[in-house]
């Protein structure tokens, strides 16, 4: 599998680190709903098909990105930078 890094271009997936499900939203820090916290930490859909997930280009530019990938075919349909430089990167890509 190859991932098209927004900075470095297409690279082997071994340069990247999987950082988890991008659809899992951290509950508010002051939330005392333990079930919501439990769901955020443990419950994953493990869906077969399209999945949005966080990756980091660990061996490259170290940029975080959201990769939309088909978990059956590994076909990647989009890569979006996230983090403090995301807006500049998206603006630069236009």
């Amino acid at each position, binding site marked *: 599998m190859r991932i098209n890094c927004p900075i470095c271009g297409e690279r082997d997936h071994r340069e990247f680190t999987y950082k988890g499900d991008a659809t899992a939203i951290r509950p508010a820090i002051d939330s005392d709903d333990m079930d919501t916290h439990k769901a955020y930490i443990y419950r994953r859909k493990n869906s077969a098909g399209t999945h949005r997930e966080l990756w980091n280009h660990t061996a*490259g530019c170290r940029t975080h990105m959201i990769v939309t990938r088909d978990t059956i075919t590994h076909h990647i349909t989009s890569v979006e930078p996230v983090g*403090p*430089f995301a807006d500049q990167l998206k603006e630069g890509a236009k």
Partner: protein
Amino acid sequence: MAKRAKMMTPDPVSPIGEAAMPRAASGDAGITLSERLPSSFVQVQAWPDTVAKAAKVIDKLAGEGVTIMATGPGRWLIESDETGLEDSLRKALKTDAAAVTGLTHARVVITASGLKVDWVLASGIALDFANMEPGDVALTAHHGIPLTIRRLPDVADRKAYDLTVFSSYARDFWGWLERAGEEVGLAVA
């Protein structure tokens, strides 16, 4: 074996050691290696709202003996033939503008060149070397060893690259280059 051009601190020891002593290939050399200990090697990481300011300071450094490599959003690696680059960048870029990190003693540069250099490097590094132009920089890894690879201008029609590696991994990576280069003939300059 390389020595720093102008020493600031009493640390002249090459992490590659005797393995980097010059020697000829047993036949034709398909790849030639040499080790260089940078006189100054600094990383600059700007914040999202200070990228332009940092870029302005770094652009002024451009010139002979200075290599500027953009390695990520708001991030540069800069090598200089002169010592003291870290101090001058710290003066020009306060912490509200950028994080300046001295890496002079943390990096070794291995120059690899020759008719078969692409073949040897591609045997262990997942990069498309055929599409790298002189001046292109790529950050990658070889079996978990982080590498910064910069293509240099060709020398006598032979491709050349600077491979920047962590000092603590340099001997191991050099060992791999030696083994991978055996089949094409390896010389050390």
